[in-house]
Protein backbone atom coordinates (compact mmCIF):
# COMPACT_ATOMS: atom_id res chain seq x y z
CA UNK A 1 0.00 0.00 0.00
CA UNK A 2 1.51 3.33 -1.02
CA UNK A 3 1.48 6.44 1.13
CA UNK A 4 -0.32 8.27 -1.68
CA UNK A 5 -3.20 5.84 -2.00
CA UNK A 6 -4.38 4.33 1.26
CA UNK A 7 -6.99 2.34 -0.66
CA UNK A 8 -4.55 0.91 -3.16
CA UNK A 9 -6.08 -1.96 -5.08
CA UNK A 10 -9.60 -0.90 -4.26
CA UNK A 11 -11.67 1.10 -6.70
CA UNK A 12 -15.09 2.69 -6.48
CA UNK A 13 -15.94 0.65 -9.57
CA UNK A 14 -15.80 -2.56 -7.59
CA UNK A 15 -18.77 -4.36 -6.11
CA UNK A 16 -18.13 -6.04 -2.76
CA UNK A 17 -20.07 -8.33 -0.50
CA UNK A 18 -19.55 -10.02 2.82
CA UNK A 19 -17.86 -13.40 2.65
CA UNK A 20 -20.11 -16.38 3.11
CA UNK A 21 -18.34 -17.43 6.32
CA UNK A 22 -18.91 -14.13 8.11
CA UNK A 23 -21.59 -13.57 10.73
CA UNK A 24 -22.92 -10.19 11.73
CA UNK A 25 -24.72 -9.58 15.01
CA UNK A 26 -26.55 -6.30 15.45
CA UNK A 27 -26.55 -4.40 18.70
CA UNK A 28 -28.51 -1.16 18.82
CA UNK A 29 -27.40 0.77 15.72
CA UNK A 30 -24.01 -0.93 15.67
CA UNK A 31 -22.83 -4.46 15.07
CA UNK A 32 -20.04 -6.93 15.54
CA UNK A 33 -18.87 -9.19 12.76
CA UNK A 34 -16.62 -12.21 12.72
CA UNK A 35 -15.38 -14.80 10.31
CA UNK A 36 -15.83 -18.50 11.06
CA UNK A 37 -16.46 -19.58 14.60
CA UNK A 38 -13.13 -18.62 16.10
CA UNK A 39 -12.19 -15.48 14.21
CA UNK A 40 -11.66 -12.19 16.02
CA UNK A 41 -14.64 -9.97 16.67
CA UNK A 42 -14.75 -6.65 14.81
CA UNK A 43 -16.95 -3.78 15.92
CA UNK A 44 -18.90 -1.83 13.31
CA UNK A 45 -20.15 1.65 14.14
CA UNK A 46 -23.48 3.03 12.86
CA UNK A 47 -21.92 4.56 9.74
CA UNK A 48 -20.08 1.35 8.98
CA UNK A 49 -23.29 -0.62 9.39
CA UNK A 50 -25.00 1.58 6.80
CA UNK A 51 -22.18 0.78 4.39
CA UNK A 52 -22.13 -2.94 5.27
CA UNK A 53 -25.85 -3.26 4.58
CA UNK A 54 -25.30 -1.95 1.06
CA UNK A 55 -22.36 -4.15 0.15
CA UNK A 56 -24.54 -6.74 -1.54
CA UNK A 57 -22.29 -7.71 -4.42
CA UNK A 58 -24.53 -5.89 -6.92
CA UNK A 59 -23.98 -2.25 -6.09
CA UNK A 60 -20.57 -0.75 -6.78
CA UNK A 61 -18.84 1.26 -4.10
CA UNK A 62 -19.56 4.33 -6.23
CA UNK A 63 -23.27 3.58 -6.10
CA UNK A 64 -23.09 3.08 -2.33
CA UNK A 65 -21.23 6.36 -1.94
CA UNK A 66 -23.75 8.22 -4.07
CA UNK A 67 -26.68 6.79 -2.17
CA UNK A 68 -25.24 7.66 1.26
CA UNK A 69 -24.13 11.14 0.15
CA UNK A 70 -27.64 11.87 -1.16
CA UNK A 71 -29.47 10.34 1.78
CA UNK A 72 -27.50 12.17 4.45
CA UNK A 73 -26.60 15.22 2.41
CA UNK A 74 -22.90 14.74 3.09
CA UNK A 75 -20.11 15.92 0.77
CA UNK A 76 -19.38 13.13 -1.68
CA UNK A 77 -15.63 13.28 -1.08
CA UNK A 78 -16.09 12.83 2.66
CA UNK A 79 -18.39 9.86 2.13
CA UNK A 80 -15.96 8.40 -0.38
CA UNK A 81 -13.11 8.59 2.12
CA UNK A 82 -15.19 6.92 4.84
CA UNK A 83 -16.53 4.15 2.61
CA UNK A 84 -13.17 3.37 1.03
CA UNK A 85 -11.43 3.30 4.41
CA UNK A 86 -14.10 1.03 5.85
CA UNK A 87 -14.07 -1.29 2.85
CA UNK A 88 -10.28 -1.45 2.87
CA UNK A 89 -10.22 -2.39 6.55
CA UNK A 90 -12.82 -5.10 6.10
CA UNK A 91 -11.07 -6.49 3.04
CA UNK A 92 -7.83 -6.57 5.02
CA UNK A 93 -9.61 -8.53 7.75
CA UNK A 94 -10.95 -10.97 5.18
CA UNK A 95 -14.57 -10.10 5.92
CA UNK A 96 -15.41 -8.85 2.41
CA UNK A 97 -14.75 -10.15 -1.06
CA UNK A 98 -14.70 -8.45 -4.43
CA UNK A 99 -17.52 -9.73 -6.58
CA UNK A 100 -17.17 -7.71 -9.74
CA UNK A 101 -15.36 -4.80 -11.26
CA UNK A 102 -17.61 -2.88 -13.61
CA UNK A 103 -16.65 -0.63 -16.46
CA UNK A 104 -16.16 3.01 -15.53
CA UNK A 105 -18.57 4.37 -18.16
CA UNK A 106 -21.34 2.00 -17.13
CA UNK A 107 -20.77 2.77 -13.46
CA UNK A 108 -20.81 6.53 -13.98
CA UNK A 109 -24.04 6.42 -15.93
CA UNK A 110 -25.65 4.14 -13.36
CA UNK A 111 -24.31 6.00 -10.34
CA UNK A 112 -25.27 9.46 -11.56
Amino acid at each position, binding site marked *: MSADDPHEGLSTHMALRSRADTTLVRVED*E*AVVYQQDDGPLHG*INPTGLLVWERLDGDRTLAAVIDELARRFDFPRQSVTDDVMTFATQLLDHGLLEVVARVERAADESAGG
Partner: protein
Amino acid sequence: MSAVFTTRAAQALGHAFEVATPDRDLTDYLGDLFSGLPPGSPDPPHHYELSGPDAADRWRLSRDGLPILEEGTPAHAVATLLWRINLGVIEDTDDLVLLHAGAVDLAGVRVVLPGDTEVGKSTLVTGLMQAGAGYFGDEVVGLDLDTNAMHGYAKPVSLDAGSWPLFSDLEPQVVDHLRPFVGVQWHVQPRAIPGVEVMSRARPDLVVLPSFRAHAPTQVEPVRAATALGMLAACAFKTSITREQRLVRLARLVEQTPCFQLTYGTLAAGVDAVRALARAVARSDPDLGGGGGDVG
Protein backbone atom coordinates in the same frame (compact mmCIF):
# COMPACT_ATOMS: atom_id res chain seq x y z
CA MET B 1 -9.71 -44.07 56.16
CA SER B 2 -12.75 -44.45 53.97
CA ALA B 3 -15.01 -41.56 52.99
CA VAL B 4 -18.26 -41.79 54.85
CA PHE B 5 -19.50 -38.25 55.40
CA THR B 6 -21.29 -36.62 52.49
CA THR B 7 -22.59 -33.09 52.00
CA ARG B 8 -26.16 -32.52 50.94
CA ALA B 9 -26.60 -32.47 47.18
CA ALA B 10 -26.19 -28.99 45.71
CA GLN B 11 -27.32 -27.55 42.40
CA ALA B 12 -24.78 -25.17 40.84
CA LEU B 13 -26.57 -23.95 37.69
CA GLY B 14 -26.57 -27.13 35.56
CA HIS B 15 -24.09 -28.99 37.74
CA ALA B 16 -25.53 -31.13 40.53
CA PHE B 17 -23.06 -32.66 42.95
CA GLU B 18 -22.22 -33.83 46.41
CA VAL B 19 -18.89 -34.15 48.20
CA ALA B 20 -17.75 -36.97 50.44
CA THR B 21 -14.84 -36.90 52.83
CA PRO B 22 -13.60 -39.15 55.64
CA ASP B 23 -13.89 -36.32 58.18
CA ARG B 24 -17.18 -35.05 59.54
CA ASP B 25 -15.77 -31.60 60.31
CA LEU B 26 -14.33 -31.31 56.81
CA THR B 27 -17.64 -32.36 55.28
CA ASP B 28 -19.46 -29.83 57.45
CA TYR B 29 -16.97 -27.12 56.42
CA LEU B 30 -17.46 -27.88 52.71
CA GLY B 31 -21.21 -28.24 53.10
CA ASP B 32 -21.30 -24.80 54.72
CA LEU B 33 -19.33 -23.34 51.79
CA PHE B 34 -21.99 -24.64 49.39
CA SER B 35 -24.91 -23.61 51.54
CA GLY B 36 -25.66 -20.64 49.26
CA LEU B 37 -26.52 -23.06 46.46
CA PRO B 38 -30.00 -24.49 46.02
CA PRO B 39 -30.35 -28.09 47.14
CA GLY B 40 -29.95 -30.69 44.43
CA SER B 41 -32.04 -33.79 44.10
CA PRO B 42 -30.87 -36.82 46.07
CA ASP B 43 -28.27 -39.00 44.42
CA PRO B 44 -26.89 -36.23 42.15
CA PRO B 45 -25.02 -37.22 38.98
CA HIS B 46 -21.66 -36.01 40.21
CA HIS B 47 -19.91 -37.29 43.28
CA TYR B 48 -16.65 -35.70 44.42
CA GLU B 49 -14.58 -37.51 46.96
CA LEU B 50 -11.72 -36.16 49.01
CA SER B 51 -9.75 -38.97 50.57
CA GLY B 52 -6.72 -38.92 52.79
CA PRO B 53 -4.47 -38.18 54.39
CA ASP B 54 -1.69 -40.55 53.45
CA ALA B 55 1.46 -40.90 55.51
CA ALA B 56 2.81 -37.65 54.06
CA ASP B 57 -0.47 -35.78 54.81
CA ARG B 58 -1.37 -35.75 51.11
CA TRP B 59 -4.94 -35.84 49.88
CA ARG B 60 -6.57 -37.31 46.84
CA LEU B 61 -9.53 -35.93 44.92
CA SER B 62 -11.74 -37.85 42.52
CA ARG B 63 -14.92 -37.18 40.63
CA ASP B 64 -17.29 -39.98 39.78
CA GLY B 65 -14.53 -42.43 40.64
CA LEU B 66 -11.96 -40.87 38.31
CA PRO B 67 -8.89 -39.27 39.86
CA ILE B 68 -8.51 -35.50 39.60
CA LEU B 69 -5.70 -34.96 42.08
CA GLU B 70 -3.45 -37.80 43.22
CA GLU B 71 -1.37 -36.11 45.90
CA GLY B 72 -2.10 -32.64 47.16
CA THR B 73 -1.76 -30.63 50.30
CA PRO B 74 -5.05 -30.18 52.15
CA ALA B 75 -5.37 -26.58 50.93
CA HIS B 76 -4.54 -27.58 47.37
CA ALA B 77 -7.11 -30.36 47.49
CA VAL B 78 -9.89 -27.98 48.58
CA ALA B 79 -8.86 -25.34 46.03
CA THR B 80 -8.85 -28.01 43.31
CA LEU B 81 -12.27 -29.25 44.40
CA LEU B 82 -13.77 -25.76 44.13
CA TRP B 83 -12.07 -25.13 40.80
CA ARG B 84 -13.35 -28.43 39.40
CA ILE B 85 -16.87 -27.62 40.54
CA ASN B 86 -16.59 -24.33 38.63
CA LEU B 87 -15.50 -26.30 35.57
CA GLY B 88 -18.40 -28.68 36.11
CA VAL B 89 -20.78 -25.73 36.10
CA ILE B 90 -19.40 -24.62 32.75
CA GLU B 91 -19.47 -28.14 31.30
CA ASP B 92 -22.97 -29.05 32.46
CA THR B 93 -24.88 -25.81 31.91
CA ASP B 94 -25.96 -25.99 28.30
CA ASP B 95 -29.11 -23.86 28.36
CA LEU B 96 -27.62 -20.57 29.56
CA VAL B 97 -25.01 -18.18 28.20
CA LEU B 98 -22.33 -18.24 30.87
CA LEU B 99 -20.50 -15.06 31.62
CA HIS B 100 -17.31 -14.77 33.62
CA ALA B 101 -18.80 -12.22 35.99
CA GLY B 102 -19.77 -11.38 39.49
CA ALA B 103 -23.28 -10.12 40.19
CA VAL B 104 -24.93 -8.35 43.11
CA ASP B 105 -28.20 -6.73 44.07
CA LEU B 106 -27.92 -3.15 45.29
CA ALA B 107 -31.27 -2.14 46.77
CA GLY B 108 -33.16 -3.78 43.94
CA VAL B 109 -30.74 -2.88 41.14
CA ARG B 110 -29.11 -6.04 39.80
CA VAL B 111 -25.55 -5.32 38.76
CA VAL B 112 -23.47 -7.60 36.53
CA LEU B 113 -19.70 -7.20 36.92
CA PRO B 114 -18.03 -9.05 34.05
CA GLY B 115 -14.30 -9.47 33.90
CA ASP B 116 -11.37 -11.80 33.67
CA THR B 117 -9.75 -13.34 36.73
CA GLU B 118 -7.36 -10.47 37.34
CA VAL B 119 -9.76 -7.53 37.44
CA GLY B 120 -10.65 -7.98 41.11
CA LYS B 121 -14.25 -9.16 40.71
CA SER B 122 -14.34 -11.16 43.94
CA THR B 123 -12.82 -8.35 45.97
CA LEU B 124 -15.27 -5.82 44.55
CA VAL B 125 -18.22 -8.17 45.03
CA THR B 126 -17.19 -8.78 48.63
CA GLY B 127 -16.82 -5.06 49.26
CA LEU B 128 -20.27 -4.50 47.81
CA MET B 129 -21.72 -7.24 50.00
CA GLN B 130 -20.19 -5.63 53.04
CA ALA B 131 -21.95 -2.45 51.92
CA GLY B 132 -25.26 -4.30 51.93
CA ALA B 133 -25.52 -5.88 48.48
CA GLY B 134 -27.24 -9.19 47.84
CA TYR B 135 -25.16 -11.92 46.23
CA PHE B 136 -25.65 -13.76 42.94
CA GLY B 137 -22.06 -14.88 42.51
CA ASP B 138 -18.46 -13.82 42.11
CA GLU B 139 -17.37 -15.96 39.17
CA VAL B 140 -20.10 -17.12 36.79
CA VAL B 141 -23.58 -15.87 35.96
CA GLY B 142 -25.93 -17.48 33.49
CA LEU B 143 -28.12 -15.60 31.04
CA ASP B 144 -31.29 -17.28 29.88
CA LEU B 145 -31.50 -17.55 26.09
CA ASP B 146 -35.23 -16.87 25.96
CA THR B 147 -35.98 -14.48 28.80
CA ASN B 148 -34.35 -11.54 30.51
CA ALA B 149 -33.34 -13.66 33.46
CA MET B 150 -29.87 -13.79 34.97
CA HIS B 151 -29.15 -16.92 37.01
CA GLY B 152 -26.77 -16.71 39.94
CA TYR B 153 -24.19 -19.24 41.05
CA ALA B 154 -23.79 -18.47 44.74
CA LYS B 155 -20.51 -20.28 45.26
CA PRO B 156 -18.29 -19.36 48.18
CA VAL B 157 -16.41 -16.15 47.48
CA SER B 158 -12.76 -16.88 46.77
CA LEU B 159 -10.40 -14.28 48.16
CA ASP B 160 -6.72 -14.29 47.28
CA ALA B 161 -4.13 -13.37 49.87
CA GLY B 162 -3.81 -9.85 48.46
CA SER B 163 -7.39 -9.14 49.54
CA TRP B 164 -7.13 -10.58 53.04
CA PRO B 165 -6.08 -7.33 54.76
CA LEU B 166 -9.26 -5.71 53.38
CA PHE B 167 -11.48 -8.38 54.88
CA SER B 168 -9.75 -9.56 58.02
CA ASP B 169 -13.12 -10.17 59.66
CA LEU B 170 -13.92 -12.77 57.01
CA GLU B 171 -11.02 -15.08 57.81
CA PRO B 172 -12.50 -18.57 57.87
CA GLN B 173 -12.95 -19.86 61.39
CA VAL B 174 -12.38 -23.59 61.48
CA VAL B 175 -11.47 -26.16 64.06
CA ASP B 176 -7.75 -26.61 64.52
CA HIS B 177 -7.33 -29.77 62.52
CA LEU B 178 -8.96 -28.14 59.47
CA ARG B 179 -6.57 -25.19 59.40
CA PRO B 180 -4.36 -26.88 56.77
CA PHE B 181 -7.36 -26.89 54.42
CA VAL B 182 -7.59 -23.11 54.53
CA GLY B 183 -4.51 -21.70 52.89
CA VAL B 184 -4.18 -20.71 49.26
CA GLN B 185 -7.43 -18.76 49.21
CA TRP B 186 -10.07 -17.85 51.72
CA HIS B 187 -13.35 -19.40 50.69
CA VAL B 188 -16.13 -17.42 52.28
CA GLN B 189 -19.68 -18.59 52.41
CA PRO B 190 -21.71 -15.51 51.37
CA ARG B 191 -24.06 -15.70 54.32
CA ALA B 192 -21.03 -15.40 56.59
CA ILE B 193 -21.11 -11.71 55.71
CA PRO B 194 -23.67 -10.10 58.01
CA GLY B 195 -26.93 -9.17 56.33
CA VAL B 196 -26.13 -10.68 52.94
CA GLU B 197 -29.03 -12.19 51.06
CA VAL B 198 -28.29 -14.86 48.46
CA MET B 199 -30.15 -14.27 45.19
CA SER B 200 -30.83 -16.83 42.50
CA ARG B 201 -32.59 -15.28 39.52
CA ALA B 202 -33.49 -11.78 38.38
CA ARG B 203 -33.43 -9.38 35.48
CA PRO B 204 -30.07 -7.58 35.20
CA ASP B 205 -30.38 -3.80 35.38
CA LEU B 206 -26.81 -2.56 35.04
CA VAL B 207 -23.53 -3.83 33.61
CA VAL B 208 -20.30 -2.48 35.06
CA LEU B 209 -17.03 -3.67 33.55
CA PRO B 210 -14.54 -3.15 36.39
CA SER B 211 -10.83 -2.70 36.14
CA PHE B 212 -8.71 -2.29 39.27
CA ARG B 213 -5.50 -0.32 38.92
CA ALA B 214 -3.81 0.44 42.19
CA HIS B 215 -4.16 4.11 43.12
CA ALA B 216 -5.73 5.02 39.76
CA PRO B 217 -8.34 7.78 39.91
CA THR B 218 -11.91 6.60 39.59
CA GLN B 219 -13.20 6.77 36.04
CA VAL B 220 -16.68 5.81 34.93
CA GLU B 221 -17.50 5.88 31.24
CA PRO B 222 -20.49 4.64 29.28
CA VAL B 223 -19.50 2.03 26.72
CA ARG B 224 -20.72 2.06 23.14
CA ALA B 225 -22.90 -0.86 22.15
CA ALA B 226 -20.51 -2.74 19.87
CA THR B 227 -17.62 -2.16 22.27
CA ALA B 228 -19.67 -3.42 25.19
CA LEU B 229 -20.70 -6.47 23.20
CA GLY B 230 -17.09 -7.19 22.35
CA MET B 231 -16.06 -6.87 25.99
CA LEU B 232 -18.88 -9.11 27.17
CA ALA B 233 -18.12 -11.66 24.46
CA ALA B 234 -14.55 -11.82 25.72
CA CYS B 235 -15.96 -12.76 29.14
CA ALA B 236 -18.34 -15.44 27.83
CA PHE B 237 -17.46 -19.08 28.33
CA LYS B 238 -17.43 -21.34 25.28
CA THR B 239 -20.11 -23.94 25.80
CA SER B 240 -22.34 -25.99 23.55
CA ILE B 241 -24.26 -22.80 22.74
CA THR B 242 -23.09 -21.46 19.38
CA ARG B 243 -21.06 -18.29 19.19
CA GLU B 244 -23.83 -16.56 17.28
CA GLN B 245 -26.41 -17.51 19.93
CA ARG B 246 -24.08 -16.20 22.63
CA LEU B 247 -23.56 -12.93 20.83
CA VAL B 248 -27.25 -12.44 20.11
CA ARG B 249 -28.07 -12.99 23.80
CA LEU B 250 -25.30 -10.66 24.92
CA ALA B 251 -26.45 -8.07 22.38
CA ARG B 252 -29.88 -8.21 23.98
CA LEU B 253 -28.25 -7.61 27.38
CA VAL B 254 -26.40 -4.58 25.99
CA GLU B 255 -29.58 -3.20 24.40
CA GLN B 256 -31.63 -3.59 27.56
CA THR B 257 -29.05 -2.64 30.15
CA PRO B 258 -26.84 0.41 30.60
CA CYS B 259 -23.17 -0.55 30.32
CA PHE B 260 -20.29 1.30 31.95
CA GLN B 261 -16.58 0.79 32.21
CA LEU B 262 -15.18 1.47 35.68
CA THR B 263 -11.54 2.02 36.55
CA TYR B 264 -10.83 2.30 40.24
CA GLY B 265 -7.81 2.47 42.47
CA THR B 266 -9.11 1.42 45.88
CA LEU B 267 -11.84 -0.93 47.00
CA ALA B 268 -13.75 1.90 48.67
CA ALA B 269 -13.67 3.93 45.45
CA GLY B 270 -14.88 0.95 43.42
CA VAL B 271 -17.73 0.24 45.85
CA ASP B 272 -18.76 3.92 45.88
CA ALA B 273 -18.73 4.12 42.09
CA VAL B 274 -20.86 1.00 41.59
CA ARG B 275 -23.33 2.14 44.23
CA ALA B 276 -23.57 5.57 42.60
CA LEU B 277 -24.26 3.98 39.21
CA ALA B 278 -26.91 1.73 40.74
CA ARG B 279 -28.59 4.74 42.38
CA ALA B 280 -28.58 6.57 39.05
CA VAL B 281 -30.15 3.58 37.31
CA ALA B 282 -32.77 3.28 40.06
CA ARG B 283 -33.65 6.98 39.69
CA SER B 284 -34.06 6.59 35.93
CA ASP B 285 -36.32 3.55 36.24
CA PRO B 286 -39.22 3.84 38.66
CA ASP B 287 -39.68 0.07 38.63
CA LEU B 288 -36.32 -0.40 40.29
CA GLY B 289 -35.17 0.15 43.81
CA GLY B 290 -37.93 -1.85 45.37
CA GLY B 291 -37.21 -5.28 43.99
CA GLY B 292 -39.55 -4.74 41.06
CA GLY B 293 -37.21 -6.40 38.60
CA ASP B 294 -37.88 -9.98 39.64
CA VAL B 295 -38.59 -12.53 36.99
CA GLY B 296 -40.45 -15.71 37.54
